[in-house]
């Protein structure tokens, strides 16, 4: 039996899933577009690897797996989830949320996770297809690594949500979402290792990236999944993910209360 207080968020997640299905065509098209991006990256890296066995510790087959895992992680929490938060703030329907006995941050997380289920399913299918054509994936073989990998992916989604949520809240002050969306996307893509593995970065940038939360989104699950970090190192990376999740969640909570005061006291 689920506690009723929790059940409301489960229902929200379910509705968000239905909502995503309502937009299935444009959802799938959007997905295919990023899949094309994946193919482009694949060809690019293939060209780079011509005549090379290994680059910065990555073999070509590891690189292929890297691309696929990155695609999977990046397709979670797509533009749809992000824009559903920002548009609430920008068109003022955040007021309707304040009228209900729900907490904004938890409600948004629930909705995001709801659509992530669909996004995850769809990208699994596409990755499955890609794997058939490339034959180059070396995913973890032992159950322990697989478990850690799965757990780090879940943590990665929560971490990404925390970051997206924070940047969405900035809309309270900017009243426009595009600049924030692009800035957040490019910073996340660069510093998470989604564009280029962090191992390819110059030393200073790599160490900068490692102290920031973004690396937990792509770098952590990917290196665990590829077996490049294992055992206590892997656990440590996951622990770092969680430290960030908790910190950013609290920061989000604080920022929300500030933002709400802003609109409710001074008027939007």
């Amino acid at each position, binding site marked *: 039996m689920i506690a*009723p*207080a929790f*059940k*409301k968020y*489960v*229902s*929200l997640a*379910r*509705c968000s899933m*239905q*909502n995503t299905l*309502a*937009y299935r065509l444009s959802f799938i098209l959007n997905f295919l577009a990023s899949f094309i991006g994946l193919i482009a990256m694949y060809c690019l890296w293939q060209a780079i690897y011509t005549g090379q066995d290994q680059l910065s510790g990555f073999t070509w087959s590891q690189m292929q797996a890297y691309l696929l895992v990155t695609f999977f992680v990046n397709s979670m929490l797509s533009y749809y989830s992000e824009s559903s938060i920002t548009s609430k703030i920008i068109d003022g*329907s955040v*007021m*309707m949320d*304040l*009228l*209900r*006995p*729900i*907490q904004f941050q938890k409600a948004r997380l629930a909705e995001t996770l709801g659509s992530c289920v669909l996004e995850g399913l769809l990208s699994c299918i596409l990755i499955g297809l890609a794997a058939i054509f490339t034959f180059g994936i070396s995913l973890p073989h032992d159950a322990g690594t697989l478990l850690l990998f799965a757990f780090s992916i879940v943590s990665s989604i929560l971490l990404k949500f925390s970051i997206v949520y924070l940047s969405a809240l900035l809309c309270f002050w900017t009243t426009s979402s595009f600049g924030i969306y692009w800035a957040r996307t490019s910073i996340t893509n660069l510093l998470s290792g989604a564009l280029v593995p962090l191992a390819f970065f110059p030393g200073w940038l790599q160490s900068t990236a490692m102290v920031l939360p973004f690396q937990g989104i792509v770098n952590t699950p990917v290196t665990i999944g590829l077996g490049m970090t294992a055992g206590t190192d892997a656990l440590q990376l996951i622990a770092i993910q969680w430290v960030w999740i908790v910190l950013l969640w609290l920061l989000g909570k604080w920022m929300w209360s500030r933002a709400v*005061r802003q609109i*409710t*006291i*001074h*008027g939007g």
Partner: protein
Amino acid sequence: MSLIETKGLQKVFRQAVKDPGLAGAVKHLFTQRYRDKYAVEGIDLKIEEGETVAYVGPNGAGKSTTIKMLSGVLVPSGGEIIVDGRVPYKQRMENAQRIGAVFGQRTQLWWDIPVRESLSLLRDIYQVPTDRFKKNLDVFTELLGMDSFLHLSARKLSLGQRMRADLAAALLHDPKIVYLDEPTIGLDVAVKHRIRDFIKEMNRSKGTTMLLTTHDLGDIEDLCERLVIIDQGRIIYDGKLQEVKDEFARERTIHMQLSSPIPDAEELFRGLPEIQVKRSGDSLEASSDTDLSIRFDRFRCTASDIVKRVMSRGEVVDFRIDEPSIEEIIRRVYDGKLDSAALSAAGKGSA
């Protein structure tokens, strides 16, 4: 203690002051100046359980702002609010659980999922027991005639359907208090009636307290015994609808159709105070001369007196009496034509 009580409730919004033109916009980037705008300026309101109160005023009078403060969405700048023993903006979640609200301009339904699903989601959000949810949904579906569109998503609904669904959504968890911000805006007559009947029925059967803002005076006459008029952030009248009518809608007009014209009709009413006689139409046309309109103060002479005098001179074929509509009264208040001191005195008298 009343169910809803506010004392000296205030809301000040900060408005950015920008100089005109591009130069002004650039200047605003560096030096921000703000001006305080009072949306609500000291409102004392007491509403008892089970009341239906019309909250009326021109655009920008502060109606919606008051409702948003009562529902816990806005934090007041000053004064006190207690709703059902709670301070709404401090205990937002607890307050939200006990109120329902319809903002006519916004929907609380999910845009892309069927209405039925939206309502089930609200069931979980408000933790409504399944059997009560079922019962309410059945009753609402029947009363509001929602059967034909429960399976549609909100984006496919007409305005009238959407408003009905919104009303159902607001009342599904049997809230003690319901705020209705222009619930009949832009609706056709049939839907309006349906919504009014529904509101009346909920008030009657469940004792739900209702506070509604509206520009539709039919809503007021049909639903509310009590009228609160607000202008520029202040209450200028609070009292019974009937009393404001007695006080400020004293004049009546009798329209009579005579079998033959009475040439010097004015002479008939000599001795009666404040009588205005109007002949409709031009005297060029003989037939319209038989229509006579007489305006009088109903507290100073009676309709029968006037009709009697006319009948002594000619035959009355048909007649009807007009009273000023509540619309006209409120329009006069908006225009500042009524002495607001007299108005509030009348309000105090009734309280």
